[in-house]
């Protein structure tokens, strides 16, 4: 057992443990943090495969951007956990039966028989100075240019969809009109009323 193997099993075990933590944690914030932890462990697995670019991207994009946003949403939304769990006990028996069947089926396939995932051999070690990022970039803009562009179109659709679903003109909103605020003059706002000074009461 080489050091790489030991590291792989170590980080995989921690990854599975934290993945279980994601779904068993009672507090949504804890669940999100467990997810961050499992992303870190996955990033280490990428590093063991010498795919340093993917490892960094996983940490930067998922941990740095997606999960932080997710944490914000979880903290800002007032999620009533008691209410959410109400339906749980009602459907739990059915859910358990379905889950047991699925686990038994998948288990019978995965453990009892050979899956035959043999075509993917060991990863050959890369020569020194090999740039993972460059190789990825070359593939993305040559062999995979078509899927790459399609992914870009999907992102564009997501933007259009998000805007159409959230931006709407409602009455009763009080948005700022910056131009009007800048153009305002003092005499429009303040009215000076001349009054007689009040004398002593006689």
């Amino acid at each position, binding site marked *: 057992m080489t050091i790489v193997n030991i590291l792989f099993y170590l980080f995989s075990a921690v990854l599975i443990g934290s993945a279980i933590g994601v779904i068993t944690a009672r507090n949504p914030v804890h669940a999100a943090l467990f997810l961050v932890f499992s992303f870190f462990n996955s990033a280490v697995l990428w590093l063991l495969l010498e795919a340093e670019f993917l490892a960094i991207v996983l940490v930067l994009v998922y941990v740095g951007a997606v999960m932080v946003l997710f944490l914000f949403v979880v903290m800002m939304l007032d999620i009533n956990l008691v209410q959410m769990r109400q339906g749980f006990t009602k459907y739990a028996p059915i859910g358990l039966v379905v889950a047991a069947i699925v686990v038994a089926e998948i288990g019978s396939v995965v453990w009892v028989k050979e*899956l*035959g995932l043999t075509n993917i051999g060991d990863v050959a070690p890369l020569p020194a100075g090999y740039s993972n990022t460059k190789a990825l970039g070359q593939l993305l803009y040559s062999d995979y240019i078509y899927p790459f562009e399609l992914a870009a179109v999907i992102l564009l*659709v997501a933007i259009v969809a998000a805007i159409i*679903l959230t931006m709407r003109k409602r009455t009763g909103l009080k948005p700022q009109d910056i131009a009007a605020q800048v153009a305002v003059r003092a005499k429009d706002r303040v009215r000076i009323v001349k009054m007689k000074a009040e004398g002593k009461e006689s």
Partner: protein
Amino acid sequence: MATDITSIADLAPAGAEIFVLAATCVVLLADVFWGERQRWLTYTLSLLTLAGAAVITLTHGAPGRELAFSGMFVSDPMGDVLKVFTYGAVAVSFIYSRDYLTRRGLAKGEFYVLALFAMLGIMVMITAGSLLTVYLGVELLSLSLYALVAFDRDSGIAAESAMKYFVLGAIASGALLYGISMVYGVTGSLRLDEIAVGVSEVGASQLGLVFGLAFIVVGVAFKFGAVPFHMWLPDVYHGAPTPVTLFIGSAPKIASFALAIRVLAEGLGGMVGGWQDMLVVLAALSMGLGNVVAISQTNLKRMLAYSTISHVGFILLGFVAGTATGYQAAMYYTLTYVIMALGGFGMILLLSRDGFESDRLEDFKGLAKKSPWFALVMLMLMFSMAGVPPFVGFWAKIGVIGAVVDKGYTWLAGIAVFFSVIGAFYYLRVIKLMYFDEPTDVGAIEAGGSMRFVLSANGLAVLALGVFPSVLLDLCIRVLQ
């Protein structure tokens, strides 16, 4: 191993896709700048986009099978025929939807933009040469459809059905991806032609492949809306604004057919015995449940949703046969069903007015007195869906049933005939309401001239294709050898 794209000629097979994408972006920008005042511009540009794409596909059609983009993209005659039908279906649904959207203040440019993006997703699925492009096409189509369903922000029921669609669709995409990953693990490739070779090398009974196949079939069945993966279909059809229902009910069915033929028949064709058994169950359940539950519906959109489920069962029959004749019959069924669905939902749009949806069965009472011509159009559509000769639906049903009988599934053909007899009841009920009941609604039909014209043509097409069935059938036979 990286192949460079050196000249514009390498991009030529995808000319229609590139044109649609560029033109959709033009529509999007044009709508931002001029749309608010001149909505007709967006509408016209969208129709021009479809016309342009049709010209490109028709003039640059591939004589045979051509690969592009390192095998990610397949251009073949079947794809060209499906694409041209898709343009037609989208154009017709735009024409039908226009009045409805304007009357309800929903005439935003994004409707056209999202529909065009959905159509691009359909085109990507039709021309997919790799599981990666299959998946991206599915996502592009689904994402646009989720947004379209929730498009009417003031409707609670639309938001609810969009939510259901989104959650169930995400699960189905997950199942599809999981299956794809298993197939990739066994065959070592995402390209469909290489997968076909890989399957024949390792053998169809290889357990990892069967495992992956099961999940892929779940994904395909969900996109089709086959029982037991049909839960989203009635709610989405009912909850979505009628123009969106019309759109979902028509062109995406071509995409589902393309998905099945590319992945199951081309990629995993060597495992035909494996997926045949699964599709037998799906087809029998879909025909049974769709036709029986449709009887108890009072809402026409919901009724047509269950009718869709039963028609999906018939389309799957063609795949169950697993022969070239079966695929031809399934393609013929899909194309004719799209024409019928356009007409059926088009009739609901035709009769709707401001504040009146016209989607209940009783809204069709006495239509023959109000508008004899459109009652006749509806009669032709309903007869065709029920499979009454001489309308086109009859030939479609004959085709798929004949294909399964040839393969020895006589009992399945028996089930199909039995349930189409049951299904005839609810189609005939609509005709009875139109011709023998007194009208409850006195409002006149407000639809514009172009819609009346296209809908009339749509109804007549159902009759004409039924009288001359060989026109379309020969086309399907020629492109699917």
